[in-house]
């Protein structure tokens, strides 16, 4: 018998239907991954199962009983007890003014399990089970005293407190560093085996879905494109969309390493950079070289100092000591013509009040390059270069998709014909198919314009695809440097190995 059987589920926000008849099942003890890009309706579907957002039609059969349309009061008896939820963002999902222990005990209290002492014992048991050190002390702490990974463990503890038969995990690891991500997923796996809990895993990360699920549900635009056994789908996807998704996912495709041009002279030389923020040393003696026309990746987790290094290279932050040499020395304003930065978040890096044409023309105007007519021609050229239609000239950023915005940001960076472009997590916020197109664009631009890239990323699969050389950063230091092939094929440092272990099989 199936545990959860969703039949022809439709969900709407106001008049807009976003889930158009979705059906799938989850068997006991099974991990079913719902994958899709943003706006595919995967989270909405998960919320509808819990009754957090009302479904407009269809059936949600939990152990054979249709729970769709149940009152909130009736659903309360199910939530926590039969279905547990592990929410997406651990930093927002805990009450900041409530002790950890009390938050976990809340589930037990609502469902009237045991007296105060028994609940307390159970909380300690749960904290121990999810692998938090010193659980007695943790129970008395507040969320801000815990790291992201620890918070996610607390949320998992709360979700499994009543041993539900199903856990809905909505992007449980998306906000976490890769090494932490792996440990959290391992924990969910262990718990599943121990308690026989089924998991509905909602994720945009195909690597995670491929690695961790028994069955896959691929969603697009509120419809199921494909569903079935994970291994079967991975081996032979039948839907065209699934094929494209798999082709575009860097985590599922091991391409050839990009060969390094050994003869090229270095375009960027970084020597012994040090940067302190108060007592905290963010960058600790970082040195590397990037060859002209090549891509060098700085890889690391949050807090590794990679973004600070990028900001020092682009002169948005000053180093306490050390030097960055990019060609002949120039003044601060001319420096901007040589080095450009593309930001992670294309939603934040474009002025919301200016049309695309004005945004792309800004560097030209700032440096007084050409008259009005010449600038207009150049802007059209640049838009064509990044494959954006001319019709977008008058649009404002909010009318563009994420991928289009990032193309605009790239066009702006290229306007002054820089030698070096620093890309700070420039593709991290994009969906896989969009990300793949941007990566292709970056490669093409590099080939045609001879650009040198410094590519900052936490995503090793992307790095493997785009970069010639890699430096791995940890706690402000470079722990290992080499060609991409050396790093991936024969990592020397333990930390590099740990990072690589978190990458899905095909790419490793």
């Amino acid at each position, binding site marked *: 018998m199936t545990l959860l059987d969703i039949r022809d589920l439709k969900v709407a926000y106001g008049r807009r239907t976003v889930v158009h008849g979705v059906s799938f099942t989850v068997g006991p003890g099974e991990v079913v991954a719902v994958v899709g890009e943003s706006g595919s309706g995967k989270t909405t579907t998960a919320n509808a199962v819990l009754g957090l957002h009302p479904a407009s039609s269809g059936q949600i059969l939990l152990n054979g009983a249709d729970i769709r349309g149940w009152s909130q009061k009736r659903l309360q008896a199910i939530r926590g007890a039969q279905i547990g939820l592990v929410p997406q963002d651990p930093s927002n999902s805990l009450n900041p003014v409530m002790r950890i222990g009390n938050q976990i005990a809340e589930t037990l209290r609502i469902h009237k399990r045991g007296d105060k002492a028994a609940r307390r014992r159970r909380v300690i048991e749960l904290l121990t089970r999810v692998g938090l050190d010193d659980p007695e002390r943790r129970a008395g702490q507040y969320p801000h005293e815990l790291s992201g990974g620890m918070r996610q463990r607390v949320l998992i503890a709360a979700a499994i407190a009543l041993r539900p038969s199903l856990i809905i995990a909505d992007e449980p690891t998306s906000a976490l560093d890769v090494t932490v991500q792996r440990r959290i997923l391992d924990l969910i796996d262990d718990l599943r085996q121990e308690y026989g809990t089924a998991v509905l895993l909602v994720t945009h990360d195909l690597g995670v879905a491929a690695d961790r699920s028994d069955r896959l549900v691929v969603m697009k635009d509120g419809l199921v494109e494909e569903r079935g056994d994970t291994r079967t789908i991975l081996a032979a996807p039948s839907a065209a969309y699934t094929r494209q998704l798999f082709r575009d996912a860097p985590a599922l495709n091991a391409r050839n390493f990009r060969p390094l041009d050994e003869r090229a002279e270095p375009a960027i030389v970084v020597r012994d950079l040090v940067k302190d923020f108060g007592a905290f040393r963010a960058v600790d003696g970082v040195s590397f070289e990037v060859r002209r026309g090549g891509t060098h990746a700085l890889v690391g987790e949050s807090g590794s100092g990679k973004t600070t290094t990028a900001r020092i290279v*682009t002169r*948005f932050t000053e180093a306490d000591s050390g030097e960055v040499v990019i060609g002949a020395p120039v003044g601060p*304003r001319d420096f*901007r*013509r040589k080095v*450009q*930065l593309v*930001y992670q*978040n294309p939603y*934040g*890096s*474009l*002025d*919301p*009040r200016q049309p695309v044409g004005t945004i792309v023309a*800004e*560097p030209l105007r*700032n*440096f007084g390059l050409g008259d009005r007519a010449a600038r207009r021609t150049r802007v059209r050229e640049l838009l064509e270069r990044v494959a954006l239609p001319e019709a977008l000239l008058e649009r404002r950023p909010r009318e563009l998709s994420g991928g289009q915005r990032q193309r605009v*940001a790239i066009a*702006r960076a290229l*306007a*002054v014909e820089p030698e070096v472009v620093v890309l700070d997590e420039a593709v991290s916020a994009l969906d896989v198919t969009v990300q793949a197109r941007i990566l292709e664009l970056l490669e093409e631009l590099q080939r045609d314009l001879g650009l040198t890239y410094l590519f900052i990323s936490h995503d090793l699969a992307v790095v493997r695809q785009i970069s010639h050389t890699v430096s791995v950063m940890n706690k402000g230091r470079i722990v290992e440097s080499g060609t991409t092939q050396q790093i991936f094929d024969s990592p020397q440092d333990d930390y590099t190995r740990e990072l690589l272990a978190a990458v899905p099989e095909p790419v490793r």
Partner: protein
Amino acid sequence: MRWARWAAWAVVGLVVLWAVVPWLFTGYDPLAGVPAEKLQGPSGAHWFGTDAVGRDLFARVVHGSVNSLSGAFVAVAVGLVLGTLLGLVAGSAGGVLDEAVMRVMDVLLSVPGLLLALTVIILLGPGTVNVAVAVGAGSVAAFARLTRAEVVRVRRADYVEAAFGSGGTFARVLWRHVLPNSLGPVVALAALQFGVAILAISTLGFLGYGAEPPTPEWGLLISEGRNYLATSWWLTTLPGAVVVAVVLAAGRISKEIR
């Protein structure tokens, strides 16, 4: 709440028309009275009734709108221009300048608005323009604080750094990116302050610091009607209702802008 939006714009539009073309709305002279018709209640002939010297109250309200509105306009302009400028400088320069400007603003904020306005009037002397400037001076701090908060927020945005990265100079980035993106809430506050200024100017008029009698001004009208409150309610109530309607409309419009 669509009707509320229309009503708000209709009220403001009507009052502006009163100020611009008062003769279209009333045939009576706001200054010359007919003693025989004194203290008549509202009727078809005199919509708002007449006052103690037989002047048509509606005519006085209509003709008075120009004084009250232009006063409020000047007050908001003073507050908006000075406050935005100070806030922009403080927010973008930071450091000692920021501290210095904002602490002065804190002092201004700690004095009740009316008291501050009265102090300025005592310095400048009474009169319509002086009252407006005084009320405006009282709102400088509010504008400065809001503008500074917005500027500080916008300055941290990626697109501002990107603008510097595109070779923009400090002044140019401030003018092209920081200021336009900071102004939204400030404009909303200006609309709200417009209502508040009308109220403050009417209050000062009521206290006798504004326009000199017999010039019609809303606050003054209410003040003059005070002596007849027991017998002729319309002298205070109807001009008061007009002030309330305009202030509420300004508040509503401000909410919409935000």
